[in-house]
């Protein structure tokens, strides 16, 4: 698990993961908070539940997110 509950993150890039939908392009640059860090324990490919400011809560691939200091 790379992310932790409550961490501030940014959607910094589009993901090539199959779960990335077209509408998620609007999320790039948005900041949010990790709500559920993974769906499958210890799976680096697990989708992460993120609440994005003004965009709702979504499951996003980990490679689209980066932690904000």
């Amino acid at each position, binding site marked *: 698990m790379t992310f932790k509950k409550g961490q501030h993150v940014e959607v910094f890039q589009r993901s090539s993961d199959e779960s990335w939908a077209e509408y998620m392009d609007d999320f790039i640059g948005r900041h949010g908070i990790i*709500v559920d860090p993974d769906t499958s324990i210890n799976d680096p490919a697990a989708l992460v539940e993120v609440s994005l400011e003004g965009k709702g809560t979504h499951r996003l691939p980990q490679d689209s997110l980066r932690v904000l200091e």
Partner: protein
Amino acid sequence: MTESQAPNNIDQLSTAPPCPVNDTRLRLDRNIAGGILSHPRSRRIAEEIRDLVNDVAWGRAGNDHIPAIRELVEELAMDPNAEEARKLGLQVKADLKDNQEVFESHVQTRNCANGACTRLAPAPCQTACPAGIDVPTYVTLIGQGKYAEAIEIIRRDNPFPWVCGLVCTRPCEYMCVRGRIDTPVSIKSIKAFAAERAFSEGNYANPLKAASNGRKVCIVGAGPAGMTCAYYLSLKGYDVTVIEAMPSAGGMMLTGIPRYRLPHEVIDREAAMLEDLGVKFRFNTVFDVDTTIDRLKKEEGFEAFFIAIGAQRCWDLNIPGEAEFATIKAIHFLRNMALGIRRRPGRRVVIVGGGNVAIDAARSCVRLGCESVTVAYRRSRDEMPADIEEVEQAEEEGVTFSFLTIPKAIVGENGRITGFDCQRARLVAKEGGTRLSPVPIADSDFIIDCDMVIPAIGQRVDDDIYPELKRTRRNTIEVASVSMETRTPGVFSAGDAVLGPATVVEAIGGGKRAAEGIDRYFNGIPQPKMPPVPVRRKRLGCIEVPAAAKMTLKRPEMPHLIPERRKTTFQQVELGLDEHAVQNEARRCLRCDICLRCGKCIAVCRDKMGIDALKLGYFDFDHPVKTDFRKIADRCIGCGACAMNCPNHAMTIKDKDGERILSLCGTILNRQPLVCCEQCGAVMGPRRYLDFVQKRVETVGNDIRVKRDICDNCLREQSALSGAEISTSPKMEE
């Protein structure tokens, strides 16, 4: 400030992304205010269109608005009187045509997805909720003691307020703006209170459903996603049947969450509401075994299917001894318990894993009388995905944790487990990444004495069920993530089957979207490509709270059952908040559906007035600064500039009972006595404000108000009289 004046301020300062409704409004405003429409008739039509578009942008439009706008736009576009009018008409006509769905969404949801229409920007808590519940409205209703009404509001978006009040992962609280000041509003717990109260008072009622449309939908799985879909389809008039392998409804809520967190009665009561609505349940019916999709289609006439089978399979540890000795998977252990098999699994038990399921299994073992319960986890406490509260409660109950522990083998003799062979680990970041992975430390083997091992290392979707449906690389069912439709026409899916093991509220949100998708499928309406905009159910006034109370009210501590009792019974651990605590908690809400934190009040107070009283540091999402509402009164002069510039009437100023009162969404920030004119008695403003004005004008000349409190009118009258005497006398003499 009147409503018609408000938008001009918004336009200048708005930084929200564009919204076609707002853009159209601005286009009309520019044309009307800029005098471009010279002919009176064209101007009148344009003003009528602008008023109607304002209604759409301000959440006041009804179903007649868009047809009426269209009609007027046609008239404007055909106006023979002016070329400019025709041009504007054609532009607005194109706006309407290109963005029809956005205009309609504003009318239907009374929310603006982009937040550009300031009055319709949804609150962060509502946006964060996967089910889109109108949180500020129901929190306000709870604060007013209107529990049944609050539940009615919640159930428009989520048919399980009581369940969610007990087990929701509460994304709303993570986004709660109050959390930037001190702690988030306890949204989850006050929802549970309202649901319990509504039930106990007999006020928990179903809404009226539409007349039957004769279409049959079959739902596979009576978990949160399946039952939510059933609820909303039933309300729309569909004939819904739910097939469930278990003997009662609830899915993972029933079999995966122990009773001490979510009593079965809570699920039963809320599931029974679906039955009251006409949803039919077929229990003990295994899909693909007792019935098949073909049989359901051909023999029973079902026209659409919703597959909500969850993620019921478990991962194996894949270590020596696992197949040889009788272990029990955590999810099976929890299911057995839910179904009434409550024998302790062993005397000394090791649970392998670090998620909520591992903690649930461990705490259940304690309650069943296991002498020692150890949770073995490969990483450290910081990396545990389980809720911190759950982990702490488990420790209180006597569960021990063995962190940085890698399973190596299950050992035993005569077919019985005698120990769990493990290795110590250290966390190492792999090259090019930040993810810490456990690496075994050489010669660090140790054995945990035990007679039962319970693996809880994750679940997956059963790929034997309905194998014709396309799966993702994660082996979940592939769907369009907005409409939840699979690649098979008429078949939809949501919940854990689509996401992998996720949360109850996500399943509810998915079930609701699927119900909408199924309804569109039947009516031949194209499926949406964007996630739904949450619906604003009401626009309620704010509860008045003095700044001191707003700051001193603290998030209530949830009372818990004593650990001794928790170790021996499955009684609910969280005892619930009392009514006083719940109502006070509702008063902590900042009403972010009204205050959009645009910062115009701060800017005008600091930059235009030079006072800088509004230190509202919580407005910033990324770098919030400590805020104390009480300090605002120290500097505020009560001029009202902030209220005049607030686009949404969140900041208000009023003169009442001899005082000027400044409030932000009901929080009384400043209260100052008013000074009245000594001559006519007219209100002049608070002393600080008068001093501020006096200081600004003192360079102009001596003001009689330095010594006496006289209003402008009286002062003018006085000056006129004295001036008249001086100026008229010489003339008269002449």
